[in-house]
């Protein structure tokens, strides 16, 4: 039961990251265009943010392991994303005015707006592994399953966002919706009485 929730959160986190990355391209385009380096900057920032998130999540997981910590991470993911949405216009305009090179413009913008929410999303996976793995011999199996779920979530987030969400909704509304799901899923963890998995 609890491991189902943990897998669900890991899958959702993967979904969230890819939706944010695709919409990030949309948010940067009005100021910096759609050139290849804009996407390069965006992807690089997401990779670095995930890398740092994996590292921090792993460190955090050695201290303690509670399902509700994942809930906190989802809440933080939602709040930092909403802050980025609200600040995006002034931040992008400031960078457009003050930075000359278009490559560094988009790199700086992607860093300021998307690094933190993506890093927080990256922290989910190692914490989830800590909650799921009962004993060392099974660690590979559970880690493999977790990677499967979270990467599958990423694929779903990519497809649904680029095929359907942008056709049905505005960019900001999609981000509000994603953040709402994160908060809802996060609140669910607080209802888990034992607070630990397995």
């Amino acid at each position, binding site marked *: 039961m609890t491991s189902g929730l943990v897998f669900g959160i890991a899958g959702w986190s993967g979904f969230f990251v890819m939706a944010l990355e695709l919409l990030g391209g*949309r948010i940067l*385009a*009005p100021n*910096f*265009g759609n050139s290849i380096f804009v996407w390069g900057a965006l992807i690089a920032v997401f990779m670095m943010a995930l890398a740092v998130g994996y590292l921090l999540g792993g460190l955090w997981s050695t201290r303690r392991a509670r399902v509700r910590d994942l809930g906190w991470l989802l809440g933080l993911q939602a709040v930092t994303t909403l802050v980025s949405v609200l600040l995006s216009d002034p931040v992008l305009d400031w960078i457009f005015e003050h930075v000359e090179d278009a490559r560094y413009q988009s790199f700086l913008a992607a860093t300021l707006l998307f690094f933190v929410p993506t890093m927080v999303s990256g922290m989910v996976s190692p914490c989830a592994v800590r909650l799921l793995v009962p004993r060392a011999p099974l660690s590979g199996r559970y880690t493999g399953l977790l990677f499967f779920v979270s990467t599958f979530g*990423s694929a779903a987030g990519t497809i649904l966002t680029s095929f359907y969400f*942008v*056709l049905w909704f*505005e*960019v900001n509304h999609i981000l509000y919706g994603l953040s709402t799901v994160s908060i809802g899923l996060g609140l669910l963890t607080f209802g888990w009485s034992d607070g630990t998995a397995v």
Partner: protein
Amino acid sequence: MTVYRLAAVLGLATMVLSAPEAMADRDVLHTERSLYQSIVVYEQGGLRCMSFYRRAVRGARQTCMKVANPNDLIFDYTKMMTAALYVVPEPARILVIGLGGGTLPKIFEKLLPDARIDAVEVDRAVISVADRFFGMRAHDRLRVHESDGRVFVKRAIGRGSYDLVVLDAFNQDYIPEHLLTQEFLTEVRQLMKPGSVLAANTYTGSALYAHESATYGAVFGQFYNLRAGSNRVIIARLGGLLSREELQRNADRHEPALRPLGVSKDWLLSRMSTDVDWRRDVRPLTDQYSPSNLLNNHR
């Protein structure tokens, strides 16, 4: 999780780009894989064309010129673009966004010897192919800028205005979605002054038609809507459209120069419609809502 994702994207890209060539009856002069597309330059039946497809795909030609008469206008849409000169007969400063083979900058350069032209193209490879194979030479009066169109426009605001802005960054297969939004057109509008004209090469035959009409209408009000086959050109003017007599007068003025290039004023004037032939209850495209390519796939 993301390494696999990247590998999948790269794998797909390789499959698409390495499709086998099937251009047996064409004389291929040049192929190049640029950052944005595969560029093929070929000659066939006296025409030299640039295509962004390696395979022969119907309607996928970007630009063509007659080898014997390089200035002749071949496509209906380029002919319809010249109708902009019926609305602003003597533009002193012209901005062309999207270069292709440079057909439009070359035409304006030829017809308007005093005009200063800025052409903007995001793909460096297209700029050099236009120069090498289509005689599109940059010089003092005709400057070519390597830039994203939207970024160029944003940077140009407050640095003088253009009398004519030409949007030719769209083709049947791909729309740069950030160049088809209300916000972008509002930025373009800031580069214009009363009497300035915008001419845009756009689409017919999909759900995009109505959305696009709503978008241009929201920024410019009434516009001339020219159609021929699957081609559509929108021509808008800041400060209201012209009377039929004024259009006729400007058309007469350009007729001696345009006629030899294959453009007839009767053909063009009869197409300068202001009728609304699209659904009015659709939302304009914005930076928040711009699924242009998806809409263009909905027939």
